[in-house]
């Protein structure tokens, strides 16, 4: 079969047999999982990172620190596929909870990226001069207010490229959610491929979509970085 025929077949299924609906749905799910995952991850990661930079001479911070260490060790120590399977087929049914696979995927992606982002965020927080914290405390702000208003904004500025990287990883990693039956880009193109017994064009198109997505994200990160670095420039 020549190349043109393959493309014809692909377009036929994509448009005439409503394949594009699946693709749009897959793209939507892929983005949903990655974005929701990133947001949950940033919240969890920031909390863990804050716990990890707390002064350690009291009991409560030590206990929290222990819990966070365990959390990070668990989510970094197992593959995401395993986490998906464990949550969807083992942990949630044991607790008697039934959730749609898309929701589970979002949650697991958030929990997983939280572990990674906590380490990124910790290095970001530690890259901010300790004087910033002292400056905030000296005018009567509490530890958490200073963290929220002064230290974390500067930390985020420093780690933005790495956070962008994490988002890219998340986008690409979504291709494993079909393990628990969530419909992402891979599922959509796999459907087209198996209907036409022809995988070359669908898979190449899928690769192209991922590349375009990643390029857009890199661009957005660059724009954000530029606007956040306002305070560094002399004007």
């Amino acid at each position, binding site marked *: 079969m020549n190349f043109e025929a393959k493309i014809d077949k692909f377009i036929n299924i994509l448009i005439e047999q409503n394949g594009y609906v699946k693709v749009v749905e897959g793209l939507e799910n892929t983005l949903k999982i990655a974005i929701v995952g990133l947001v949950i991850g940033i919240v969890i990661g920031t909390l863990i990172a804050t716990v990890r930079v707390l002064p350690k001479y009291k009991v409560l911070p030590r206990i929290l620190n222990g819990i966070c260490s365990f959390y990070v060790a668990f989510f970094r120590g197992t593959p995401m596929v395993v986490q998906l399977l464990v949550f969807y087929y083992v942990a949630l049914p044991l607790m008697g909870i039934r959730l749609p696979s898309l929701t589970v995927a979002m949650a697991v992606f958030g929990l997983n990226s939280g572990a990674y982002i906590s380490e990124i965020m910790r290095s970001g927080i530690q890259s901010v001069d300790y*004087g*910033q914290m002292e*400056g905030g*405390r*000296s*005018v009567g*702000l509490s530890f958490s207010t200073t963290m929220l208003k002064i230290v974390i904004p500067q930390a985020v500025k420093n780690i933005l490229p790495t956070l962008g990287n994490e988002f890219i990883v998340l986008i690409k990693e979504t291709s494993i959610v079909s393990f628990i039956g969530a419909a992402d880009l891979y599922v959509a193109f796999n459907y087209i491929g198996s209907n036409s017994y022809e995988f070359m064009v669908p898979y190449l198109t899928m690769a192209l979509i991922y590349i375009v997505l990643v390029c857009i994200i890199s661009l957005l990160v660059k724009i954000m970085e530029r606007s956040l670095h306002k*305070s560094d420039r002399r004007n």
Partner: protein
Amino acid sequence: MIDVINLRKSFGKVDVLKGIDIKINKGDVVVVIGPSGSGKSTFLRCLNCMEDPTDGNIIFNGVDIADPKVDINIHRRRIGMVFQHFNLFNNKTVIENIMLSPVLCAKSDRRKAVRKNLFSKEKQPVKSVKEIKAEARENAMALLKRIGLEDKADVYPSTLSGGQKQRVAIVRSLAMNPDVILFDEPTSALDPEMVGEVLEVMKELAKSGMTMVVVTHEMGFAKEVGSRIVFMDEGVITEENNPADFFGNPQNARLKEFLSKVLM
């Protein structure tokens, strides 16, 4: 105003402060000098619990703030601090630096007042957030005018010179209307040219009756502005006197040696 009783601080096994007793009264300008490693900075940082004292009491306006159960943030509002490295907030403009804490503190007081009004018959007047912000901005602009930097209100600290940064840091602490301001070597990180402008602001502050505790190596400033000079050596205060006698008639042998080296 501040009554320090037997203040001790150790880092691990190293005893940095070995029992400091000093009374700082309203309107005092106490200048702390001493060789490096004598514990001057640690002493100053203990006064607002930036370093938690290992032992002893710091009675500030009748409350022992060395007690870990005390909410230190409330008391730090009344104790300003100026650092060697300025520590301005890099992600905020100059005026935001000055307004930040007054606005946040006023807002949290406002929340408390609103909550109180809910349960009591006598309603206290509560300012709106808008009013709080406008007031803080006005106050900040007045302070900037005082140091001649009102045209720098909307720039970021990274665009200022060292001297300008330190002057902004001084008015940032002033914006909270503190009872006392602590200066931790405020001119040590500055170019020689810029030392003068910062000392000028401090002199003006002293003249206006502000209580100040200053750790510095500027002997000229100590002589001219200080109402009391304290010499620290190896974690204790070895001499404390008025400027004239302190420089003119030093008693302690280590102080004599120190002065002979710095007043050449």
